């Protein structure tokens, strides 16, 4: 059997929706034993979100849940039950890592603040991921990815100067913070190996998203400049943008930086007369007449499919790429197939489901997707008996008391 980096690592998740589960996903896809705690009375909200298998709602049928939650075990636990501590205590004792992403204060309400958790298991690494951090006046403000990316200001630099700002997709920051979160957890694990010391990590999705635009912050601090939307223009390239191609809403990127790239580009489009005009002769001239240049380039690209434009340009050494849709990347992209980026698993209620692996290949310990996302409470019995070594009589008594629901 292939070895995975985290084969010996144990993690428990009090998580829902995106960020917390995305951190757990990094651990799970690299071999960790990951137990998610859920409840039938309070299932992960994404279990109730469409799309569902065959459009029939059901807690185990949501693609929002099933897609990022592979390779995890699921324990059902009624967090309002007076005896729930018997189980959470054992989970905390068992785990190396605890991940949670509820609104600040929720874990404390369950007796699972870091202070309490640390008393049970001083070596544990606990990480909280939240919208804006565990402290500060806005700590309790709920929200969604599109709202948080707005707070960060991404829409102000995405789109056209003469139109409404545009979002970067939808939940962009929900994918930023978990990368930092995973880095932080692994760093803390290394620290623990050296010192035996556990710790608590507070991640604010807001603060992590700001890292993705730091130079713009500095430009304000130093030069009092605020960046605007500028379509696809880039300071030292022209043409640089997205050009219309054959078909409905089909586009290809072309980016020409150097003079030699410009010469190669002109050859690809058979050096029409306009390319020889002085107004397009140098980078400065091309930048000055960029709008006109872009129109002329678009007139050429319109005669080809986006794939043809990309292939013609790339053969000549010009930077180009199709603006791929989700269908393009999932169904057709030969690069992603070559690198086995998408995986399929067989889910008991949904049949074949599609998943991305992590975004890097490890040469010695490749990450793997092995088990489909769990059904709610699917592993309650296994987790209690095999992982937590709960005595049979205690397990039965808790079950009869209806704790596992």
């Amino acid at each position: 059997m292939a070895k995975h980096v985290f084969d010996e690592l144990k993690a428990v998740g009090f998580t829902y929706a995106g960020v917390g589960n995305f951190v757990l996903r990094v651990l799970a896809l690299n071999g960790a034993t990951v137990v998610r705690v859920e409840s039938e009375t309070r299932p992960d909200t994404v279990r109730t979100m469409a799309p569902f298998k065959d459009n029939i709602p059901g807690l185990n049928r949501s693609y929002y849940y099933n897609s990022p939650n592979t390779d995890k075990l699921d324990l059902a636990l009624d967090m309002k039950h007076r005896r729930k501590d018997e189980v959470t205590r054992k989970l905390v004792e068992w785990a190396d890592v605890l991940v949670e992403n509820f609104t600040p204060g929720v874990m404390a309400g369950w007796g699972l603040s870091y202070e309490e958790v640390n008393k049970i298991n001083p070596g544990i690494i606990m990480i909280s991921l939240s919208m804006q951090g565990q402290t500060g006046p806005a700590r309790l403000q709920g929200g969604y990815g599109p709202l948080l990316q707005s707070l960060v200001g991404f829409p102000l630099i995405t789109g056209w100067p003469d139109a409404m700002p545009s979002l970067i997709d939808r939940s962009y920051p929900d994918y930023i913070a978990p990368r930092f979160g995973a880095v932080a957890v692994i760093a803390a694990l290394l620290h623990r190996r050296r010192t035996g010391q556990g710790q608590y990590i507070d991640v604010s999705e807001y603060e992590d998203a700001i890292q993705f635009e730091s130079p713009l912050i500095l430009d304000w601090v130093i030069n009092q400049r605020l960046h605007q939307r500028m379509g696809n223009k880039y300071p030292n390239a022209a043409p640089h943008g997205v050009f219309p191609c054959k078909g409905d809403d089909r586009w290809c990127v072309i980016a020409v930086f150097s003079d030699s790239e410009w010469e190669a580009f002109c050859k690809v489009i058979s050096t029409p007369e306009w390319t020889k005009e002085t107004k397009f002769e140098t980078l400065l001239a091309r930048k000055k007449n960029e709008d006109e240049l872009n129109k002329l380039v678009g007139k050429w690209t319109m005669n080809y499919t986006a794939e043809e434009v990309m292939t013609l340009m790339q053969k000549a050494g010009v930077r180009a790429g199709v603006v791929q849709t989700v269908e393009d990347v999932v169904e057709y992209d030969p690069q992603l197939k070559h690198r086995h980026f998408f995986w399929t698993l067989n889910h008991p209620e949904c049949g074949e489901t599609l998943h991305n692996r992590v975004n890097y290949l490890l040469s010695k310990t490749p990450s793997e997707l092995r088990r489909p996302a769990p059904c709610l409470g699917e592993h309650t019995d296994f987790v209690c008996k095999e992982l937590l070594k709960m005595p049979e009589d205690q397990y039965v008594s808790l079950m009869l008391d209806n704790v596992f629901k």
Partner: protein
Amino acid sequence: MDSDQHWKKDRGILAPYRALDLSDERGLLCGKILADMGADVIKIERPGGDPSRNIGPFYHDIPDPEKSLFWFAYNTNKRSITLNIETDDGRAILGKLVKTADILIESFDPGYLKGLGLSYAELSKIHPGLVMTSITAFGQTGPYSGFKYSDIVAWAMGSIMSQCGNPERPPVQSTFPQAFINASADGAEGTMVALYHRELTREGQHVDVSAQESCIWSTAENVLEWDGAKLSGKRPGHLHTNPSGLHSPVLWQCKDGYVAMFLLGGMPGAKTNRKLTEWMDRKGMAPDFMKNKDWEKWDFHSLTREELDSIVVAIDKFLKTLTKDEFQREAIERNIQGQAVYNPEETMRNPQLIAREFWVKIEHNELKDTITYPGAFAKFTETPLKGWRRAPLIGEHNEEIYLKELGFSKEELMTLKMGGII
């Protein structure tokens, strides 16, 4: 204090590790993340300085390789030496440094290092424990690995671009390109996974990051919606599509800019809808049909365009009476799910970030200035990120590394300098 000691004292959670950073703008954030956690990250620049020092904006708008704010932002806490790895001496020196390092980060086009005899296979012979992280647009292998690219190419091929921009216009990248920032963060994640493995086994490995894949992950909702319902939605622009297929705004105009909020039906939206209506009512701007609505039972699946429009019109009118800050303050107080759309100026005076002491001041002695930077990406109770140092000057640490650590003589250093090697 001796600068060597300065480096080693109390550096933080990754203090035992050294990384050689050969990357450019495609990978600088990866090394920065490690350096902020206290790793000894040595930026290896070509003689004259790394090409990414030419990326603007610049300090007081003076284009100068020592004044790139892009460079400042993504090289905090690193050291710098110059080294021309295209020379025999340069390669030999890199080999010596590799023996002292745990990690090597690079973002050259695939094949470039192999051409110099510096591929992972070769470097791992020098140091089997080395973790080498390569950050490229398409990865080291596969039919597109030889493609020419810049950030916008990876953004497009990674499908996230198809979800950015006004639907009636071409798709867009952001004014500050994002594809390789995503990939660099993934580089840090992959590096840490591989480093953990090395701690268990002493075995290094190659971490092969593809910016295309990084971009696809950042738009993963679209992958699952395709899988589950063959949905391939058009870019949202400033809108949100609700389950009935109708659009309503996420971004709204207010008095001095934009605010973000979106309408949701049933339980998920009830609290915000009710509290917003109460707030509008206090200002006499809530129409009766909103005041009388049972928001818990507001069914988004059977919603009509007319009903949605009438609500959107009323909210739009209301929001236009507010400033961003008024909206933000009340949204927090009333627990409404909404945010102001803040630019960097407003971000820097956001009380939330100030209360959390997010911003750090970093001294730039040679500029006689102290500059405020975004601070830690996480708060650790035992090993906080601290001791912030500005990005290095070109070859700032040549002497302490070449003379003190590698034991070259001053004469040799002169030879290396005049030979264009350092």
